[in-house]
């Protein structure tokens, strides 16, 4: 029984760190321009396809066969595509609406999301159905010898480690660097930041680029973990990531990570121990969300909403 419990914890941590990685992009964009970027899930999807394209079309076989060469290149390729798409999205879809009512960019985000899905479906060869994605890391499963054994795939461990390292790095970047300070300033008050010599447009592009890069990395690691990708993957995981961001307190980096992990664990443990079994595991995620929002509307780490003059 203990081994089952621990297996579910492991499953939850893998899923949770994936969601956390996507949620970081959601939360950063919201923090800076108070936009819920529903197309962010699609940036994650595009990253996975970009990574696969790098591997299939650009890489000679002798490199593709050695994971320690292939993995970094595919990660860079995937996140590069994601960054390009995210920056283009900001430039052409959101910037023209910078001063429009808040509903306009929100609906645009939904439109961008559908457009990106359809674009990949139409233009990526074979993307009308799920396509196989190779394992880019050490093949196989580590069975931790507790009880009956707790299996965890090496790609799952990679996913956990990479996402925690990136989240930690991101927090240091925002807390410690000049750019990070400019980001915080822009998020607090864009006009005053501009008076202090910060160019808000540059900072917003930077935010989209960082969020895109993280989503791209997440996309490639997801493909490598589950070994197939499809154009719907961004939608479902995007919704979870959005939930994670809200749960942790939208706009807060640490909150996004904790929110992601909570969602992963609730899904895994809820499917195991709560009534209804795995058929209802998604339901528990949203039950937790509702409970948290009733008692703490700003999420775990969120600040209470400031009323702007």
């Amino acid at each position, binding site marked *: 029984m203990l081994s089952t419990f621990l297996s579910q914890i492991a*499953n939850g941590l893998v899923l949770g760190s994936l969601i956390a990685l996507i949620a970081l992009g959601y939360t950063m964009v919201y923090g800076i321009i108070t936009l819920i970027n529903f197309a962010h899930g699609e940036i994650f999807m595009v990253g996975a396809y970009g990574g696969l394209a790098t591997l299939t079309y650009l890489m000679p076989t002798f490199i593709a066969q050695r994971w320690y060469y292939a993995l970094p290149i595919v990660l860079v390729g995937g996140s590069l595509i994601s960054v390009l798409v995210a920056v283009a999205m900001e430039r052409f879809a959101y910037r023209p609406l910078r001063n429009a009512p808040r509903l306009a960019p929100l609906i645009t985000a939904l439109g961008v999301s559908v457009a990106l899905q359809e674009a990949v479906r139409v233009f990526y060869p074979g993307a009308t*159905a799920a396509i196989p994605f190779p394992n880019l890391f050490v093949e196989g*499963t580590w069975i931790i010898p507790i009880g009956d054994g707790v299996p965890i795939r090496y790609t799952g461990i990679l996913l956990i480690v990479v996402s925690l390292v990136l989240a930690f790095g991101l927090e240091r970047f925002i807390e410690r660097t000049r750019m990070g300070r400019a980001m915080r300033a822009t998020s607090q008050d864009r006009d005053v930041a501009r008076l202090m010599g910060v160019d808000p447009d540059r900072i917003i592009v930077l935010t989209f680029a960082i969020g895109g890069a993280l989503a791209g990395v997440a996309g490639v690691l997801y493909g490598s973990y589950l070994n197939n990708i499809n154009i719907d993957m961004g939608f479902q995981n995007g919704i979870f990531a959005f939930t994670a961001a809200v749960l942790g307190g939208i706009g807060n980096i640490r909150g996004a990570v904790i929110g992601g992990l909570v969602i992963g664990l609730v899904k895994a443990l809820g499917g*195991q121990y709560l009534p209804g079994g*795995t*058929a209802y595991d998604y339901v528990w995620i949203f039950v937790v969300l509702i409970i948290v929002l009733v008692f703490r509307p700003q999420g775990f780490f969120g600040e209470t909403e400031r009323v702007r003059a």
Partner: protein
Amino acid sequence: MDRKRTVVATAALLAGALALTACSTNRTETGGASSGSSCDTSKGTLVVGFVAPLSGGLSALGLGMKNSADLAVNQANQACKVPGYKLALQAEDDQATAQIAGQAATKLASDPNVVGVIGTLNSSTAQSVAPILGQKKIVEISPANTNPSLTQGDNPASASRPNPTYFRVATTDAVQGPFAAQYLVDKAGKKNIAVIDDGKTYGAGLAAAFAAEAQKRGAKVVAQEKVGEKDTDFSGVISKIRPLNPDAVYYGGEYPVAGPLSKQLAAAGLNVPLMGGDGIQDETYVSLGGREGDLATSVGAPADQLPSAKAFIDAYSAAGYKEPYSTYGALTYDATNVLIQGLTTAVGSGTFSNTTRDALLTAVQDTNLDGASGKVSFDQYGDTTNKVLTIYSVQGGKFAPVESGEFQAS
């Protein structure tokens, strides 16, 4: 300023609407080599409707079906099967979604030239399509729906036919699930079976029928779990069933879930075969992670081993379609031919009108056809009387037939 903006918005909306209509008109041009045939087509064109997923995860099955229907229609045109008329296939994409399938059905039903509809692939889509077509007395013949309730209603104890214009040439899950159980328990000797399904009409029905028969045969169903049809990570379900030590997993659903599920089972150290129904019996299953030794049942005998299917396969490869005819190719070809044959009888030398629909319905009900998949005739519910099924197993990267047989209830 405001007015200008409204004008622009309206123009954009109109353009969008136009683009949409343009996309969804998907009338397949029949012909090619046959277009120059010398048949008398003075009375006009009759439309054979077709509804199946032509995009999305199940498109491998749907496109094979569409090509097979197209082949039957082309051959009928060449042979002047319906005197005075040219037949045209109008294929609609239902994206395996009940609501979109309903829209496609409404569209087809509003066209007075649509004589019948071939489809759908999914039982869940048929549930919304069959009643819509039924209202207009349009015959629907499905090559692939296997859920029993479509023909026998929700209560199998007192069966009553809910859709009098609905027929199918595929056997139902009430036969397929038990057939799988007989093989897995009696022949393969599996006694601890975990059952998983996707909660859709097809998957849940199949899994329930399987579980009931497996228990009757002395196997223990150690777990009954559900997964989402769009799920990709099944680690939760797998961790749950792993300590129960199943020696086989039965999955009710389709290959987009079954393939990755099989792969993840092995990755978690649960190296037991996965078995499923006709929904997983497709080559894509293996490329998505299906393992050697995984099993599937499918309706009918394997097309490439039936002498009756040889003509179909030869014609299909001669026609040069891009996609393989896939699991339901031969059945779709038969379903289309049933409709065409019925049309020949019903129209005769007359003209097709709304009053011909009753005659067509009777003609289809009385079908007796030697098809590519075997003999085709229907019972009083619209179900096929041909209850031959086949067990397949993954060998060398593809599904190879293990054995075929007529289902015997016990």
